[in-house]
C-alpha cells in the first residue's frame, strides 16, 4: 500500500522539454513510474525519452489517459499550467516549480478547491511511493519499500530522513514533500489523515520548519485523530527571528511560528520530537512495534 500515488498513477509532465523536465522524466521512468505524456506548447508531436509530447493537457489526457501531473514549467507560466491541469481534472497536480508569486498560488489553490482536486506544492520535491510510483524530483536510489510514511515541508531534509530509514532497513511507504511556500495545496493534516488510514504505514515522520502554524495545526490533529507513532523534527531552532531563510514560508510571524512553539505543541500532542535530523531514525526504531 501507499498513499496518493501508486501503480495506477499515469503521470503527465508539464514542461517536459525543459532542462529539469527532461532530466526528471528520465529519473521517474527509471524509478518505474508510468510517465505517459508530456506537454510543451508548440512542441506537440515530438517525443522526450520516448514519451509523447502534446501542446495541451486536454489532448494529452484524452490520448494517453494521464491522471496526474508534475509541473516543471518556469514560475511565470506555472499558474497557467496548474490551472490547465486542474481544468483537465488531473489529480494530484504536483507543482515542483519554485518562486511562484503567492497570489498566483492562491488562484491555483482556490480553483483546485472549487473542482475538488488535490495540488501538492508549489516549490516542493513531489511524492514518492517506494517501489510503486514517483512524481517529482526525489532521488531514486534513496527509497526502499517499507513501513514509514514521511511528510515534510523541506525537500532536502526529506532526503536525509528517507536515506536514513532505508539504510536502517526500515523503508518507506510514501514520502510527501509539501513545499516550503506560504500557500501550499496539501498540508500536514491532509498527509497525517492519509497515513493514519493506510494499513501499510506503521509510523509517521513529520518534518516541519519555522514560520506559519502548520505544525501547531498538525499537533492538534495528531492529538485528536492519529494513533500511529509520530516522530517529528522542526528545523530552524537557531534561525534569527524575522530573517528570511531562503523562502517566504520561513518568516517568523508573531508568537506563533517559532520552533519552540511548534516543538512544544507536537510534544504535547504525543509526538516524539528529535533535536537534530540525525536522531529521527533512532526514535522511529524505538517506537515501531
Amino acid at each position: 500500500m501507499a498513499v496518493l500515488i501508486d501503480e495506477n498513477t499515469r503521470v503527465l509532465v508539464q514542461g517536459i522539454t525543459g532542462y529539469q523536465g527532461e532530466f526528471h522524466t528520465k529519473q521517474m521512468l527509471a524509478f518505474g513510474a508510468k510517465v505517459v505524456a508530456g506537454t510543451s506548447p508548440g512542441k506537440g508531436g515530438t517525443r522526450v525519452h520516448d514519451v509523447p509530447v502534446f501542446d495541451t493537457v486536454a489532448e494529452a489526457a484524452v490520448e494517453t489517459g494521464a491522471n496526474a501531473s508534475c509541473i516543471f514549467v518556469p514560475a511565470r507560466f506555472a499558474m497557467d499550467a496548474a490551472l490547465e491541469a486542474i481544468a483537465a481534472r488531473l489529480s494530484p497536480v504536483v507543482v515542483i516549480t519554485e518562486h511562484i508569486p503567492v497570489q498566483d498560488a492562491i488562484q491555483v489553490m482556490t480553483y483546485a478547491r472549487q473542482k475538488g482536486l488535490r495540488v501538492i506544492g508549489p516549490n516542493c520535491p513531489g511524492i514518492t511511493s517506494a517501489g510503486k510510483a514517483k512524481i517529482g524530483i526525489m532521488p531514486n536510489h534513496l527509497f526502499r519499500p517499507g513501513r514509514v510514511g514521511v511528510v515534510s515541508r523541506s525537500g532536502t531534509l526529506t532526503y536525509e530522513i528517507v536515506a536514513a530509514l532505508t539504510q536502517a532497513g526500515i523503508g518507506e511507504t510514501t514520502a510527501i514533500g509539501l513545499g516550503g511556500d506560504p500557500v501550499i495545496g496539501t498540508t500536514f493534516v491532509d498527509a497525517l489523515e492519509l497515513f493514519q488510514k493506510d494499513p501499510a504505514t506503521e509510523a509517521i515522520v513529520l518534518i516541519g520548519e519555522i514560520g506559519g502554524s502548520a505544525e501547531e495545526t498538525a499537533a492538534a490533529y495528531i492529538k485528536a485523530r492519529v494513533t500511529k507513532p509520530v516522530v517529528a523534527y522542526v528545523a530552524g531552532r537557531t534561525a534569527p527571528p524575522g530573517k528570511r531563510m531562503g523562502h517566504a514560508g520561513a518568516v517568523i510571524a508573531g508568537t506563533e511560528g517559532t520552533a519552540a512553539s511548534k516543538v512544544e505543541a507536537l510534544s504535547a500532542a504525543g509526538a516524539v520530537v528529535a533535536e537534530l535530523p540525525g536522531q529521527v531514525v533512532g526514535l522511529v526504531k524505538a517506537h515501531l512495534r
Partner: protein
Amino acid sequence: MKLHEYQAKEIFARYSIPVQKGAVVRHPEEILGLDLQYPVVLKAQVLVGGRGKAGGIKLAEKPSESVEKARAILGMDIKGERVTRLLVAEAVDIQQEYYLAFTVDRATRCLVVVASASGGIDIEEVARRTPEKIVKEPIDPFLGFRPFHARQIGRRLGFADAHLGAFARIAESLYQLTTDLDAELAEINPLAVAGGQVIAVDAKLIIDDNALYRQKGLPENEELTGLERDARTHDLSYVELDGDIAVIGNGAGLVMSTLDMLDHFGGRPANVLDVGGGASEEAMKQALDIVTRKPGVRALFINIFGGITRCDDIARGLVANLPQVPMSVRLTGTNEEEGRQILQQAGISASVDPEEAAKKAVVLARGQG
C-alpha cells in the same frame, strides 16, 4: 521586499488613499524650505520595527524646533539601521485609531482582510489578549474584495454615515493595490479618524519577492546588505548572521537544520547561503564568492543533499573556485559518485554524515583543523 513608509504613502496617494501632507528630507535644513502647516511630525524612515519606542518619531511645534529635532533623529542607529531620511508630515488631531491590512493567510490559502477598531502600536497585544476585537475575513481571489465587502468590514468596526463610505473607499483601494503590486502585506496602522476625515497615518508595504519580475517602477530594495543584494542578483538566497562559519547548503529546511547542527556542536554561523534547487556550477561559483567575502569568516561548511541539485555540478563548481578558508564538505544524493570522484581528484575529502561534517567545521573555525 519591504518599502519605507514614505514610499508606501506615495503609492497610497496614487490610489487615492488620504495621507497627511508631507515630504522626505535627508538634511535638517531642508525642512525650512517645506510648505507645511505646523505642528509637524518627524518620522525616521527605517525598515525595522519599533522606531517610535527608539525615539525615531518626534513632534515639532515650529520650524526651528523641527530642524533641531531632525538633527537628533537623522544619523541615529535604530536596531542596527542608520537613519538617513526623515518624513516630515503635518500633524493630525486623531480622534480614533483603527487597524486595516490585507495579507496572505496560510491557513485559508487566501488573501485576508484584517481590521480592528482598536488600532495603534499595540495591535499585536490586542490580537493576543482580545482576539474578538480583530475582524479577519478570507477573500476569494476570483470574486475579489468588493465594495460591499468593504462596507461590511466598515460596519463591523463601527463606521457610520459619511465615514462609512470614506472607510470603504480606502479599503477597496488598499485591496486593489495589494493585488496590483503583489503585496504580501499592505497595512495601515493607525488608520485614523482625524478632523472629520479618515486618513492613513502610517503605511507598511511588503512586496512578494517572487513577483518582482512583473512589478516595474518600484523603488530599490533597501532591506539587503551589499552581499545580500549580490546574492539576489544571482538568484541566490543569502542571509547574514554574526558568527565565523560561512555556510552553503541547498534547500531552506536543510540550511536551517545545518544552523541548528552547528549551534548544537558549539559553532557560530557567519552567514548562510541557500543555492536552491538545481544549482549549477556557475551558481556554486557565485555562492563561494559571496559567503567567503564576508569579513571574519574562519571556516566554510558546505552541506549538500542532491535532489534536483546534482552532486557533480556542485563538485565541479567547488573545484574550479577553491576558497581560501579551510572547509568541511558534506556531499550526498543525486550523482553522488561522480561528485565524490571530482572532489577526490582535487584532493578534497567529503563526508556523507552531516553531523560529522558539522563537527569538523566547528573544529576548523576554532583554528584546530
